[in-house]
């Protein structure tokens, strides 16, 4: 009797371990479609290309079925991709670079947002009646941002540096707030200026605020890259899925740039908010990752000793999975099938 109990226990444990292991790493196919696990966006009010691509059927056209696994907080995206909980991660390029420097085996394959004058990546604001007028007025002031490091912290430092203030780190007093609460902290006197990822138009609409600078003022268009990445393991095992995913996203980028209002509506419908509250970024045409946008952050992170020296942009991203830009003929379907069977 006792022996049976033990056997049953061992069998149950083994089954549990096998199930969890296979669930997270097994390649899944849903009928004819390849499943790609995607995180739901952390900030629901900004247009998410996953939702747009899904809604318009761009994923389906490439034989991909997206599976949304829920919201993953930005700091945990790299770990989630490494652990196989999601297949694709995003967020600002500097997080990807920092993750790779720390040993994460991931690679960025397709570009997402980029900065424009009208739609910068980050906006730094103060109260309309604030005494802050010039860059040097910022020294010693309290900055409300949602996290240390990354674009939140280094954008103001670089702004100060560009205006002649050497060694800006330590010259600002940083107050971290929950995401979305930076302006609240500013209004309640908890900070003197705040850094937010918002559309300048929405900032003006909030009222009572003055924009000090945006990341466009510092670096033009190259500071706001948010490329998507897969784990090296996924890329090695399923390069064709990666290729098709990149193609779908590149197509989505171009569509969103051409139809921003409709993109906002799709997002609003998906997350059930008023379309007027949704904003849309500018997306990199054809999803081609720009070398300067990655090199910029490698240099910045190196300057602040946040990453190991010697990281090259080739370690961080590749455009090899990007098919021909839209307009040219699609890749021959026969060839693609051959490639797929060859890799099995």
């Amino acid at each position, binding site marked *: 009797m006792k022996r049976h109990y033990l056997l049953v226990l061992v069998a149950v444990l083994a089954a549990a371990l096998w199930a969890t292991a296979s669930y997270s790493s097994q390649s899944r196919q849903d009928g004819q479609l390849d499943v790609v696990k995607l995180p739901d966006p952390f900030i629901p009010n900004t247009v998410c290309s996953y939702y747009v691509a899904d809604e318009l059927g761009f994923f389906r056209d490439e034989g991909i079925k997206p599976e949304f696994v829920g919201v993953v907080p930005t*700091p*945990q995206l*790299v*770990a989630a991709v*490494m*652990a196989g909980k999601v297949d694709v991660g995003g967020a600002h390029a500097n997080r990807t670079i*920092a*993750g790779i*420097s*720390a*040993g*994460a*085996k991931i690679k960025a394959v397709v570009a997402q947002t980029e900065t424009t004058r009208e739609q910068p990546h980050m906006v730094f604001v103060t109260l309309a009646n604030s005494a802050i007028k010039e860059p040097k007025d910022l020294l010693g002031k309290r900055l409300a941002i949602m*996290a*240390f*490091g*990354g674009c939140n912290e280094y954008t103001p430092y670089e702004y100060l540096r560009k205006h002649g203030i050497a060694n800006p780190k330590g010259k600002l007093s*940083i*107050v*971290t*707030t*929950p995401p979305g*609460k930076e302006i609240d*902290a500013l209004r*309640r006197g*908890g900070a003197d200026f705040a850094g937010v990822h918002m559309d300048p138009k929405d900032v003006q609409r909030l009222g009572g605020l003055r924009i000090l600078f945006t990341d466009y003022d510092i670096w033009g268009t190259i500071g706001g890259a948010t490329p998507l990445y897969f784990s090296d393991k996924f890329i090695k095992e399923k390069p064709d899925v990666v290729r098709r995913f990149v193609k779908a996203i590149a197509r989505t980028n171009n569509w969103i740039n051409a139809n921003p209002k409709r993109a906002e509506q799709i997002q609003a419908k998906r997350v059930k908010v008023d379309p007027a509250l949704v904003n849309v970024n500018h997306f990199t045409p054809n999803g081609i990752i720009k070398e300067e946008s990655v090199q910029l952050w490698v240099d910045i992170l190196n300057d602040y000793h*946040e990453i190991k020296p010697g990281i090259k942009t080739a370690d961080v991203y590749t455009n090899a999975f990007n098919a021909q830009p839209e307009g040219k003929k699609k890749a021959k379907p026969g060839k693609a099938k051959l490639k797929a069977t060859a890799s099995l």
Partner: protein
Amino acid sequence: MFYRLWLGRLGSFAQKTAAIAAFLLVWELLPRLGLIDPFLLPAFSTVLKALWRLSLSGEIVGHLLSSFRRSAAGFSIAIGVGIPLGVLMGWFKRFEKVVDPLLQVFRNTSILALFPVFILIFGLGELSKVAIIFWGTVWPTLLNTIAGVKNTDPLLIKSARSMGVTQLTLFRRVIVPAALPSILTGIRLSAANAVLILVAAEMLGANSGLGFMIFYSEQAYAIPEMYAGIVSISFLGCMVNWFLVVLERRVTGWKEQVHGG
């Protein structure tokens, strides 16, 4: 014979540390054998190295002091309020009847759910962190004090009363000493809570402290440092608990001796 005593002590020590040693061994081996990616779980030795580096540079001492200051402040206010209020509530039945339902509501509302309220009222500075720790730690002390007072042996009270003592003397000499074991248990639970809540309280608006260090390291992908912070908090919690157990034993032991004598 002495040798056998020494061997016995060693055996008992081995027994006590066996489970922890096994756990640390698994922690060391899983990433080394590639069963878990070392990016997600660095080997224990890597974490120890990070901890050593942080200690040498003094960085972790600063965080430890910050955390300790905050939790000590919240905790002292909690027992400063919890014990007197508990004694009053335990003794004056009518007072308790009126106040208790409200306190039950407060106590059963998860502290994490109340975070936004604390931030709205106290902002993001030190005060809100101390307030959060106070809120989370006052309940065990308060409730255990009430229970301790209520469970005072009625015989003791009656015999004291029969000797004609004043109310104040009754409190000082009979009720509080009788409730002391309960109160001390409450204090110990509160202290454990303080360390737990500390981490949550330091997630927001902090720029020092062990909880802050953990989340900062996570964001910077300094994973060994993150685990070093976690190990430190675990160590801090154990030390606080051990200290209070020793204190409890001393104070209660003394009390028992008096009774026997």
